């Protein structure tokens, strides 16, 4: 044997060892083009990706993940730097369907990291993090339970929900806290919300977030069967294993603990108000608006739905200030804010953005629906002038409507479009609504107060 042949044999053996190293790496590795076309892929990737799209032949990473993470394609296309981490450890929730759970070992949550190597190449790392998420969920679950127990509470309702958020069983705690009887079974848990305080999409958001994070905690107005309201705190947790909350009850997918914290809410209301409310008008301030609006847009990204924004701007406020004094201008803003609060739903975020400008974010509402709300406000303003110490102050308002779409990158871009529409309304002579849907929209002759939300 020559030394050369030995060296060749060594290289062959080394090559084989490297191949096996990649075959056995317990994490998915994919190299692809920026369009997702797969150049190299290891077996764990196939193990994880094949069940997602059995028809896809793993030629394209984005195609394989289209059904569970359609945003990845856009994320990569929108990543401008020549190289770098596009996303790191991004969680992809695959399923929360009990039928799929029966397939043992089927992943429920994947994590994906995408690294842009250069203009033409991506590396992806894909891992099954189901167990990790489950452990974290258990920990958070425990924490949330402890919080619920350690907080001084007088009473709570323990409500089992099925995977669609419908109440799966009645018990006496539900009767005590909400006064609903056994016929509440089968209804969605939105039955505990006053009209306009939630949307179908928001109800599913909470279930999805509870599933992904282990729990979801939210405070807000709630309504009893007799129509009286209270300030409620609701924690939703997915049940680790589907089962009955109590012996003999049907199985539940989620457990919701609903507490009446009206007393506690009143005590902390002033602190909350100082932090999140506009001092003049009492509606949300910019901080609260951006928190809530960004959260809603993030939810929209995860679960696409119509989302609209309306910007209102009081007309000629400077002139009103000169004529009636700043107290007059302030009164106009206060009454406009009150009218906005009364016209929009509880689920909408009404905020004063500064000066004479207000913004309203409308979840699960398209531009036609937003346009209708805005038009109703505009019409009511002309019909109901402000009053200050017996003086009547007539004023008008202009509004701009924009609906979120794929071409709009973020909240700032959506704001810019709505503000542009307001400027257009001003240019067109004020006291009008401009923006998306305007050309096609015919305002109803007499809009009913609180028309059904456009879901």
């Amino acid at each position, binding site marked *: 044997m020559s030394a050369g042949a030995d060296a060749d044999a060594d290289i062959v053996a080394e090559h084989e060892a490297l*191949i096996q190293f990649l075959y056995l790496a317990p994490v998915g590795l994919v190299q692809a083009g920026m369009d997702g076309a797969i150049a190299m892929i290891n077996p764990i990737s196939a193990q994880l990706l094949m069940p997602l799209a059995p028809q896809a032949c793993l030629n394209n990473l984005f195609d394989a993940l289209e059904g569970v993470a359609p945003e990845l394609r856009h994320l990569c296309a929108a990543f401008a730097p020549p190289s770098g981490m596009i996303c790191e450890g991004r969680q992809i929730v695959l399923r929360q369907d009990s039928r799929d759970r029966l397939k043992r*070992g089927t992943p429920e949550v994947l994590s994906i990291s995408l690294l842009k190597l250069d203009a033409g190449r991506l590396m992806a790392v894909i891992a099954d993090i189901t167990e990790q998420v489950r452990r974290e969920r258990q920990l958070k679950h425990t924490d949330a339970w402890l919080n619920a127990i350690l907080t001084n509470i007088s009473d709570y309702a323990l409500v089992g929900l099925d995977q669609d958020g419908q109440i799966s069983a009645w018990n006496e705690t539900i009767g005590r806290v909400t006064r609903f009887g056994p016929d509440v079974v089968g209804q969605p848990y939105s039955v505990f919300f006053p009209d306009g305080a939630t949307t179908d999409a928001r109800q599913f958001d909470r279930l999805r977030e509870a599933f992904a994070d282990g729990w979801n905690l939210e405070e807000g107005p709630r309504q009893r069967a007799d129509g009286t309201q209270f300030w409620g705190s609701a924690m939703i947790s997915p049940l680790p294993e589907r089962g009955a909350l109590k012996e003999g009850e049907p199985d539940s997918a989620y457990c919701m603990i609903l507490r009446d914290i009206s007393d506690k809410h009143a005590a902390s209301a002033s602190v909350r108000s100082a932090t999140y409310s506009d001092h003049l008008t009492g509606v949300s301030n910019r901080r609260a608006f951006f928190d809530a609006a960004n959260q809603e847009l993030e939810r929209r990204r995860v679960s696409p739905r119509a989302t609209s924004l309306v910007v209102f701007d009081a007309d000629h406020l400077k002139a009103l200030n000169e004529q009636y004094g700043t107290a007059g201008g302030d009164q106009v803003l206060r009454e406009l804010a009150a009218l906005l609060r009364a016209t929009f739903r509880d689920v909408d975020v009404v905020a004063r953005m500064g000066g004479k400008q207000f913004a309203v974010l409308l979840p699960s509402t398209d531009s036609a629906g937003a346009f209708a709300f805005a038009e109703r406000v505009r019409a009511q303003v002309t019909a109901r002038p402000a009053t200050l110490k017996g003086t009547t102050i007539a004023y008008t308002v202009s509004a701009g409507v924009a609906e979120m779409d794929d071409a709009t990158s973020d909240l700032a871009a959506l704001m810019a479009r709505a503000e542009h529409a307001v400027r257009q309304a001003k240019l067109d002579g004020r006291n009008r609504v401009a923006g998306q849907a305007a050309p096609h929209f015919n305002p109803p002759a007499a809009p009913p107060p609180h028309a059904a939300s456009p879901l």
Partner: protein
Amino acid sequence: MSAPLFSFDTPGLGPQLAAMSDAELDSLEFGVIGFDADTTVCRYNKLESTEAGLSPQRVLNQPLFTNVAPCMNNFMVAQRFEDAADQGSLLDATIDYVLTLRMRPVKVALRLIAVPGAAVRYVLVRRQK
């Protein structure tokens, strides 16, 4: 030369594979992986070895679904063998699949064979044209 005696699609191939010598398996025009009740690989033919780029000594006596073909460790493949074993039923099914032979996605047909009472179960691999 005569046509090969056994093709990928030959009905009732399970018992016939069991009767073949290693040399006969090597002459087949499709990949053959045989594994026992513990999923330990006990047969690995030449074509499969060439396609995967792994010599038999790296594969034989290794657990199939964790150390040899982790890409098949899901409900589409591994689970079907488990279910057949649990129920003591015959498994002879052909599915479309993608293997990552030498890290390239390769469209294949997999034939999954488990005959109740037989010591060795088989995954057959044929490249799709």
